[in-house]
């Protein structure tokens, strides 16, 4: 009996030691930094984790995901090796997946595992997952409902299909899915307010053109960067006196086209400014699409800038984290056009929306109705 107790104690100590080692290995990986700092220790820790076979290790590693984005790929790849050796239990996968406090990437990986292990069990969760805060998880569930709607439509059940598309639209956050669904609903005669659905900012004050000769405008501090004074007159390109204008866009994807305000100019810089009334203090994502060089300031603080021209543009091309305070928040964007003359370098524009981290539109409390036509006009005295 004494011998059995000793063996059990030793085993328990061994397990405890292994668990402590696992926690230490995870911590080692979590401490890695930029430019490869900590790689050597992380490499040893990765191997130690990957050598584990217990199901619990798989989930313990996944629970550390989301704390350091440089560490995530180390942890996820180590967890996948553990899962290859000992496939996690379906119920445990479901429990982890449904716990929305777990990191989106970890839950995405678990959803993949669940779908490959027990597709039916995964499908049964889609009703719950279509409003999931993790974009990749939500996307899979939304796609399931888009496919269901398509099947209803193909079976001639148009009313059912329309209702399913409406439900899918409420859940969808990815631009391609929203576009697909809204196109279908328009076929059924239903107009979707895309700018509101996406949360595009449609009303701006703009000023330009300032200079961008030799692409120097990107680094040049023009007056709006020091202070936005909507009633001010500034000296712009070629010594012209310039003032702020009112700019409303009716573009379904919120495109603010400076060419409409200032003509098809080259080597110029313009600014757009708006005020966003936030219902609460909150962390937001400023999601920007722009193929010109740009800088963005929120409440006077530079968030990010990028001096690339005409390499491509798409919705949500850049995702910038910012903090909004309750009440009025200012957003200023600088947009530079360069000297290129090719046909595909004409665009001088951007599109911007405000969302939470899931891509759900955050609408300003001072948001007006979606404009029906574009409008570019001088500011009235009471607006300046």
């Amino acid at each position, binding site marked *: 009996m004494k011998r059995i107790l000793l063996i059990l104690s030793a085993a328990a100590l061994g397990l405890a030691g292994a668990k402590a080692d696992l926690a230490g290995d995870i911590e080692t990986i979590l401490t890695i930094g930029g430019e490869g700092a900590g790689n050597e220790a992380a490499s040893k820790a990765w191997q130690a984790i990957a050598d584990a076979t217990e199901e619990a290790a798989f989930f313990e590693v996944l629970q550390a995901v989301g704390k350091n984005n*440089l560490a995530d790929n180390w942890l996820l790849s180590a967890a996948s090796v553990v899962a290859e050796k000992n496939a996690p239990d379906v119920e445990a996968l479901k429990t982890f997946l449904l716990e929305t406090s777990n990191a989106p990437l970890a839950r995405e990986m678990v959803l993949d595992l669940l779908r490959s292990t027990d597709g039916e069990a995964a499908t049964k969760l889609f009703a719950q997952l279509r409003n999931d805060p993790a974009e990749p998880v939500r996307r899979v569930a939304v796609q399931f409902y888009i496919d269901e709607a398509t099947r209803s439509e193909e079976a001639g059940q148009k009313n059912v299909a329309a209702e399913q598309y409406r439900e899918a639209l409420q859940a969808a956050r990815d631009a391609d899915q929203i576009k697909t669904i809204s196109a279908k609903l328009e076929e059924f005669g239903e107009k979707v307010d895309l700018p509101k659905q996406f949360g595009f900012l449609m009303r701006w004050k703009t000023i330009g053109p300032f200079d961008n000769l030799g692409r120097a405008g990107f680094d040049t501090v023009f007056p709006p960067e020091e202070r936005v004074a909507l009633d001010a007159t500034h000296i712009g390109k070629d010594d012209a006196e310039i003032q702020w204008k009112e700019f409303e866009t009716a573009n379904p994807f919120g495109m603010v086209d400076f060419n409409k305000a200032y003509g098809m100019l080259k080597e110029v810089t313009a600014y757009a400014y708006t005020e966003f009334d936030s219902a609460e203090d909150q962390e937001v994502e400023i999601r920007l699409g722009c193929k010109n060089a740009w800088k963005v300031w929120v409440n006077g603080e530079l968030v990010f800038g990028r001096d690339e021209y005409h*390499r491509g543009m798409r919705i949500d*091309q850049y995702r910038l984290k910012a903090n909004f305070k309750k009440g009025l928040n200012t957003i200023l964007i600088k947009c530079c056009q360069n000297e290129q003359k090719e046909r595909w370098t004409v665009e001088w524009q951007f599109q911007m929306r405000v969302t939470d981290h899931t891509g759900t539109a955050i609408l300003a409390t001072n948001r007006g109705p979606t404009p029906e036509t574009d409008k570019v006009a001088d500011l009235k005295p009471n607006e300046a």
Partner: protein
Amino acid sequence: MGDPIGTLPLILKAILVALVSVGVAHADWRQFRGSGVDGQAPAGSVFPSSLDDSSIQWKVDLPGRGLSSPVIVGEKLFLTAGSGPSQARLHVFCFSTEDGSQIWERQFFATGRTMTHEKTSNAAPSPCTDGERVYALWSSNDLVCLDLDGNVQWIRGLMVDYPNASNSLGLATSPILVGDILVVQIEVDSQSIAVGIDKVTGTNLWKVEREKKANWSTPVPLGEHGGKQLVALQGSAGVTAVDAATGETVWTHGEGASTIPSGVYRDGVFYAVSNGITAIDVVNSAPGETPKVLWEASTMRPKTPSPILLDDRIVIVAGDVFTCASLEDGERLWKSRGEGGTITGSVIAAGNRLCAVSEREGIVQIIDPTGDEGKVTAKLKLGDLIQCTPAYADGAIYVRSDKMLWKIGG
């Protein structure tokens, strides 16, 4: 002519067979455009003499897109891909060259921007290997080092380190191993850099600023000169030879250069894609001085594929037109058209024959370039869009599309 070794004594035959066997066993294809980054298969290699559907030894479906080329170590083939709606899921595959079975797969998640032009994709840079580790890079600037069994050695998020080191059209420059240093060239309009990375630890040995202009060409090792391993960094401003150990510039050919096809090096001469083709005498170019130019062939202007060398010739491709010139002076020898339209992937060479793949229909073609014109001697239509540079090992050609990987011949 009969058996060329039939008259040799038996013992010599055995030695020759053993030597060839050893050579075949180690005939890896380790980087973009092969182990020498020059498109050359190992000495003694040959392409299949004829091609038809029976030449396809195996093909496997790929779950992700990519333009990257496979790299091969022994009987293991490594390939990258990207999947998902934004190409954010990163894949590294290890396949058996024998039967195409998957030996392992590792997946990662992009930490950098994945946006590319629709024609390219996140998995555009080719991986490379030193025979012990595989280095995989994506357009999102995620860089992963694995051992040959798929164990993670280190991971870098280069766009986390350098947030503006990206191109909205997508990056395609492949990482290159020069000795123990992994050279990664990220030349873009914004944060433009080249980095020398310790291949074992994944930490920076050096980082240099580069011209702020988008560039998709790949570094080319120039061998050892003056006690330094040199590597050519090509970009729109020209060609810079840097010391791979320190990143210090040794000389600069500042006459501009292409930003898509890469140059090629052999026997002390770098054939740069600059003002057409410019032959630079690397051996006799002194540090800090303008490098010595042997000749320029301004009409030799490759479009996307990199130039390829034969014994005494250089061949370039623009669209579907092959142009061949003398390696001695750049004088044009012939011009001829390939099969199946535009060729995007670089051409590779084995035994004085070329292998190219047309983009639109994926026509794999073997070309005899040794006569007065280029002559297609064998071809096989894969019927898929092919933009990768083929890989070669042990008599077989490996080609991938966005959907599939093929082994042809061998």
